[in-house]
């Protein structure tokens, strides 16, 4: 078989192997690690794009690792959700570009290769998580990206980062255990670890209790990963204290794994005859709604820029879960698109914030007054991304909100539409506050006056992401069309 | 568009332009300014007088100037009623403008007075020539506002207070007129003045009545119909004498003019009778006649007394019109014209006396004849004229009014009119009496005759003579009586 045929395996293997090689190869030349990481992530991106082209041409396809066909072997499966790997690879690539000048300032030089290694392994874990068709591998890849994420959080200096990493680790470990427990239950019920297979056999299981228990355990486990309210408590600390590129990765990519895990779970259990998913979905809606409001209100009172952005992630995860909970074609496809769009926006936000913080050395919002004058491009990017995260049309953030709001109306929940809109308004409130601070207030801090615009490597990443978070809004229709077939299994339950 | 149909526009624009020109010229060269003012005023008077004569001979023109909104046009027309009023206005203004040269101190503000007064004149001519309600309203509002700087010209506290009162009344009145016009257009689909009234006014009787009430109330403010007269006794004394003359002589009449247009050319005689509003109008006018005259009797301030008299005299006109008899309407028109010159003259006298002696109260007039014989003579003639002593002009109009009322069988109104005339005698006689009574006040006994300067005295003599001529030669063709007959016929028995 040619390389193209093995693409599905390569998209996982390239980053993981590449990442694993970095500490070994570049112990002596830490700065060169950047180029290698960049190259391997670019390769990953190229492979994933070729996969998407194949997907569009042939529809979903599988790859049997080692030639064993499912249900016996380790199967990799590529569907339209899997296409998210292209976006995640892209974001990782941009994060790496950004890291070039940023990381040496916050990470001891000896640990720089380790940093790049972890980022690459994280990407590999994500990719694997997305393309696996097998429950156990799902767990394994989850552990890969989770553990690398814990380590990445701990990368930053200072005691806070360590504490945050431990908090993240503890909750993450519990969630991993729950997922593992659920996988065990499902295997016991169905005798298979292949997801597609298990979905078919669950219905035939003798007792409904273990099935329900498995569903619950999976849901809660992934909810922690996704940081859905009230299991989001680890997120603000971790995302705020990690280095900015790590925060970008965590917020944009890693939490999305939890969301996709929930989607996979719902898809797996959706065929089940006697187990109704409705109550679960209602619960998701409620939690999502609370998350939207709670996250927005909590963000409003933050004074630390990155912490504020972390709470904004809580809000947006809430949106996605509202959409999934509603489950109608409109809302669910909106939620699916929002996964991608939010990834781009949030990466833009964290990287732009990182640039501002890096150049000025200040991280409190009030200290940043007048920085727009000194760093116009970074501040502009942050502004655009803030408008996008608030869902101002026609930015990327609007697509999901519109679809979810419309879905709420379709299913007769006008109040939910109100929540969607009020949430957006609250987000806009702090967005405006930050924009105001940056552009329209005289400098308060002397370091603002001496700050200079971020170096080109940072700027490139930031501007590209900010532009995407605007332009993706214009591409709402093709994106929705793209995810629509993948969403269908979900909507049957709604 | 012939030159003839442009004449109303010229008569309207000429004073406005002349006023501005005088403002520019007069501040540099007084003589030139005077020449401009006098020339413009005379030309305007000649044009309007010619138009009045021509209209009597059957010249009727209508000129559409500009469309301000699809149903609304600015239209001017030449008809007997309008031309008669225009001629009266420009005649009185001619006198007042020239009088003002003597009356006002010779300074820069004098030219401002003339500019405003002449703009005011132009707008009043515009009211006279207006061919529809909106055009009338346009110029009515404009001259009302332009009068404000004239009333407050003295810039005293009293003048400012009177000006404020004037504005409040007039603007409120304007709002009523405006609402009435809207209602007319809504109900009748037309705002042009049509002989015999609009063809149909569709609407509930209540609404039609409300329309009429709005218009009469609005114009009634200007016409000083009681109880809407509040501004008159304050504004007249506050304004400089030449403008008081105009206020009393023609501005109040403009309100009456508006009511006439509305009654005869919007609603029409038959509809008015059907609506049953005429007795009410007559009643209110009658009450105004008596009450205002009674107030005049008790008033010591000369100009105020004259102002009350104006209210009373103008109410005659409305009272006569409310009978709708041809004779009475003729009398009404004649009275408007004759009264304009009589009352204007009286105000000229009052102004002159006040400037020369400082006396503004009737009780201070004692022995005036000793010092200012010519003025006193003119004052006497004019006062007698207003009382209605033959053969002065006031007699003619009162006689016609009385005849008209008797003709229409309105005996109560006739009685009211006679009582009013009696009261007029009561309030005017003391003036005459005091003037001619010799005084033993040592300050005055030995003083020499101190007549005023030429301008003002000349105007006084002119008005006095006018009172005599209009009285003795009233029936000559081309005189107000002749024109008024024609106008009354135009209104009461419109040509098909």
């Amino acid at each position: 078989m040619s390389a193209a045929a093995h693409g599905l395996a390569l998209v996982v293997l390239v980053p993981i192997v590449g990442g694993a090689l970095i500490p070994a190869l570049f112990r002596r030349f830490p700065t060169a690690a950047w180029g290698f990481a960049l190259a391997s992530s670019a390769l990953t991106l190229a492979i994933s794009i070729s996969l998407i082209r194949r997907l569009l041409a042939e529809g979903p396809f599988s790859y049997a690792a080692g030639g064993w066909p499912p249900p016996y072997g380790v199967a990799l499966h590529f569907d339209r959700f899997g296409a998210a790997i292209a976006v995640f690879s892209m974001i990782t690539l941009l994060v790496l570009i950004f890291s070039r000048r940023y990381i040496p300032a916050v990470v001891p030089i000896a640990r720089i290769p380790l940093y790049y290694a972890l980022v690459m392994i994280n990407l590999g874990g994500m990719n694997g998580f997305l393309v696996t068709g097998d429950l156990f591998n799902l767990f394994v890849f989850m552990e890969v990206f989770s553990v690398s994420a814990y380590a990445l959080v701990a990368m930053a200096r200072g005691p806070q980062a360590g504490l945050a990493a431990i908090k993240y680790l503890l909750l993450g470990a519990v969630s991993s255990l729950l997922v593992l427990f659920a996988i065990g239950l499902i295997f016991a019920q169905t005798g298979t670890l292949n997801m597609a297979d298990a979905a078919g056999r669950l219905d035939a299981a003798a007792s409904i209790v273990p099935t329900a228990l498995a569903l619950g355990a999976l849901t809660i486990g992934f909810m922690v990963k996704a940081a859905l309210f009230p299991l989001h408590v680890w997120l603000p600390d971790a995302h705020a204290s990690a280095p900015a590129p790590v925060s970008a990765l965590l917020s944009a990519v890693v939490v999305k794994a939890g969301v996709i895990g929930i989607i996979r779970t719902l898809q797996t259990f959706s065929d089940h005859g006697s187990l109704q998913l409705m109550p679960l979905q209602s619960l998701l809606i409620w939690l999502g709604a609370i998350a939207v409001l709670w996250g927005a209100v909590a963000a409003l009172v933050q004074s630390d820029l990155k912490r504020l952005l972390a709470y904004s992630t809580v809000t947006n995860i809430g949106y996605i879960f509202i959409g999934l909970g509603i489950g109608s074609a409109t809302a669910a496809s909106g939620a699916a698109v929002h996964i991608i769009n939010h990834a781009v926006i949030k990466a833009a936000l964290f990287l732009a914030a990182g640039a501002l913080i890096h150049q000025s050395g200040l991280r409190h919002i009030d200290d940043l007054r007048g920085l727009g004058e000194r760093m116009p491009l970074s501040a502009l990017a942050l502004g655009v991304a803030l408008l996008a995260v608030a869902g101002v049309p026609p930015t990327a953030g609007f697509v999901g909100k519109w679809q979810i709001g419309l879905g709420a109306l379709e299913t007769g929940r006008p109040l939910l539409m109100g929540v969607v809109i009020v949430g957006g308004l609250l987000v806009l409130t702090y967005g405006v506050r930050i924009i105001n601070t940056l552009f329209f207030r005289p400098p308060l801090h002397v370091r603002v006056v001496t700050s200079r615009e971020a170096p080109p490597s940072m700027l490139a990443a930031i501007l590209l992401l900010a532009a995407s978070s605007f332009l993706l809004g214009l591409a709402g229709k093709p994106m929705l069309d793209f995810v629509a077939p993948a969403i269908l299994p979900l909507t049957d339950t709604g | 568009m012939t030159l003839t149909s442009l004449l109303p526009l010229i008569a309207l624009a000429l004073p406005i332009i002349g006023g501005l020109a005088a403002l520019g010229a007069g501040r540099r060269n007084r003589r030139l300014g005077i020449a401009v003012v006098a020339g413009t005023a005379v030309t305007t008077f000649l044009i309007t007088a010619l138009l009045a004569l021509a209209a009597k001979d059957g010249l009727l023109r209508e000129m559409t100037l500009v469309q301000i909104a699809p149903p609304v046009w600015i239209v001017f027309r030449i008809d007997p009623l309008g031309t008669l009023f225009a001629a009266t206005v420009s005649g009185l203004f001619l006198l007042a403008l020239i009088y003002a040269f003597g009356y006002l101190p010779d300074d820069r503000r004098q030219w401002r007075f003339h500019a405003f007064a002449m703009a005011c004149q132009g707008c009043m001519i515009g009211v006279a020539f207006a061919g529809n309600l909106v055009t009338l309203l346009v110029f009515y509002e404009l001259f009302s506002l332009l009068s404000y700087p004239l009333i407050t010209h003295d810039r005293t506290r009293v003048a400012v207070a009177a000006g404020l009162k004037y504005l409040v009344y007039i603007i409120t009145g304007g709002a009523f007129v405006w609402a009435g016009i809207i209602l007319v257009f809504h109900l009748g689909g037309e705002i042009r003045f049509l002989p015999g009234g609009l063809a149909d006014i569709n609407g509930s009787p209540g609404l039609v009545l409300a329309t009429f009430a709005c218009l009469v109330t609005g114009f009634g403010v200007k016409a000083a119909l009681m109880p809407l007269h509040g501004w008159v006794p304050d504004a007249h004394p506050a304004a400089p004498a030449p403008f008081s003359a105009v206020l009393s002589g023609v501005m109040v009449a403009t309100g009456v003019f508006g009511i006439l247009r509305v009654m005869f050319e919007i609603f029409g005689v038959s509809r008015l009778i059907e609506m049953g509003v005429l007795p009410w109008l007559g009643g209110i006018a009658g009450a105004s006649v008596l009450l205002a005259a009674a107030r005049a009797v008790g008033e010591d301030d000369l100009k105020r007394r004259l102002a009350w008299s104006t209210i009373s005299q103008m109410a005659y006109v409305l009272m006569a019109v409310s009978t709708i008899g041809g004779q009475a309407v003729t009398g009404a028109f004649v009275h408007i014209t004759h009264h304009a010159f009589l009352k204007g003259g009286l105000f000229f006298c009052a102004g002159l006396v006040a400037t020369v002696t400082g006396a503004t109260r009737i009780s201070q007039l004692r022995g005036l004849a000793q010092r200012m014989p010519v003025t006193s003579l003119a004052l006497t003639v004019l006062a007698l004229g207003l009382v209605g002593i033959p053969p002065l002009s006031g007699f003619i109009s009162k006689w016609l009014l009385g005849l008209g009322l008797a003709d229409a069988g309105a005996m109560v109104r006739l009685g009211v009119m006679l009582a009013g005339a009696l009261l007029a005698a009561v309030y005017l006689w003391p003036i005459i009496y005091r003037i001619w009574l010799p005084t033993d006040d040592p300050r005055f006994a030995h003083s020499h005759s101190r007549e005023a300067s030429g301008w003002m005295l000349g105007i006084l003599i002119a008005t006095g003579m006018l009172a005599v001529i209009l009285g003795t030669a009233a029936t000559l063709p081309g005189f107000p009586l002749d024109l008024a007959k024609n106008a009354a016929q135009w209104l009461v028995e419109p040509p098909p």
Partner: protein
Amino acid sequence: MPIELHDLRPVLAPLISALCAGGVFVMGTSGRWRAIWSLAAAGLKFVIVWSMLPGTLAGSVYIFRVGEILPGLSIAFRVDAFGLFYALVTATLWVLTTVYALAYMKGSHALKRFFGFFALCISTTVAIAFAENLFTLFLFYELLTVCTYPLVIHDQDAEARRAGRKYLAYTLCGGAVILAGMLLVFHSAGTLSLAEGGILGDVDDHRVLLLIFLTLVGGFGVKAAIMPLHAWLPAAMVAPTPVSALLHAVAVVKAGAFGVVRVLYDVFGVNLLKSLGFATWLGYLAGFTIIAGSIMALRQNRLKARLAWSTISQLSYILLAASLLTPAAALAAIIHLANQAFTKITMFFVAGAIEHNTGKTHIDQLDGIGYRMPWTMAAFTIAGLSFMGVPLLAGFITKWYLSLGALAADSGGFVALMALSGLLNAAYWLPIIYRAYFRETGIPQLREETPWMLLAPIGICAGYVILLGTGAQAPLMPFSLAESAVRLAFGLEGGIP
């Protein structure tokens, strides 16, 4: 039915201004380039907008579809008679405002930012006018908020920021409510296209319709400053005068009023609204706003504050007229867009000129100002008289049609309201004129006329006020365009009864 033509101009008009705004941002450090780009933004748009007039009068509708960004949500531009009328008003006024602003703002800080956003506002406003659907309208409506915000807080002091906060809070909440309404419309009608006769005809649920009405009218009503959603407007007075002119006369408040009219006529449609009866309540609210706004204006001593409250009052004329649902009243609503704009902008320009020349901001300081700045105050007088409804001036036309429309709708009470409002207008404009001309100051007033760059826009606007009041056939403000807009909205064939 109008002929639909695909044409680039509907999108070119906003785009070219946006590009010029970009020019300001890039090259605006130099005063000369700033002026050139600003004038180009205003001037080019002016030419493009006016070039569409003959075609529109002939019955064509220009369309340009940019693309669909979400299923059913497309960005598209469509130039119909009403939209073009609004665009003409803004395009014309914008040239004047830009000239005025260039002179007025000389020497201020952050001019690049100021003129950049100023030019962006031009772009968004015309895009609002040309929006084919509710979504495009909303999009640029929100963008307008964003673009005006830096202008409002231009002074960057505490007061300006407070005002800016208030402005944003009101308008963004309004925007959110519109979004809710838009979702409801899309959900129940399946489309957001603005169409003559409305798009909600097939919706039966009375509650849904009420909710749509409340959200859309309420949302757009924020910018139209209908009470009780008006509080941002007087606060926003802290902005520099050209911005106040922009906010109060041209762009922002008019965008709100324009939106409400669009919602009433092109989302609901006249017939549906008549059967629903919601508009009556809007009429009452607008009537209340007219009177209450005037009374508040009466109590202000700061000239610009009085102007602001007067704006609140005047805007409700448009809403009232639109809510009466009769052709004549609709005509009043559309024409008042122009009348109020030209009249109010004259006043703001004058207020700015006075402040610029003499530093006077309060009415009780204006004694004798008419002798210092005679031409400026003459323009103010014309504007004041227009608001009072003196015939031959613009305000009269509005009141005329509005009252006729009210009578046709059997709401004669509004005629009395018009009269009362005219009186209140007299009560708050005349004292200013009185002070300017008739009040003794004791000191001789030196002639100190406004510089010509400020005076010329003032004079042209005042001239327009007269032209609007006299020229139904005037070539520069086509009355017939407003008429054809009304004909389209009401589906009439002939003239307007």
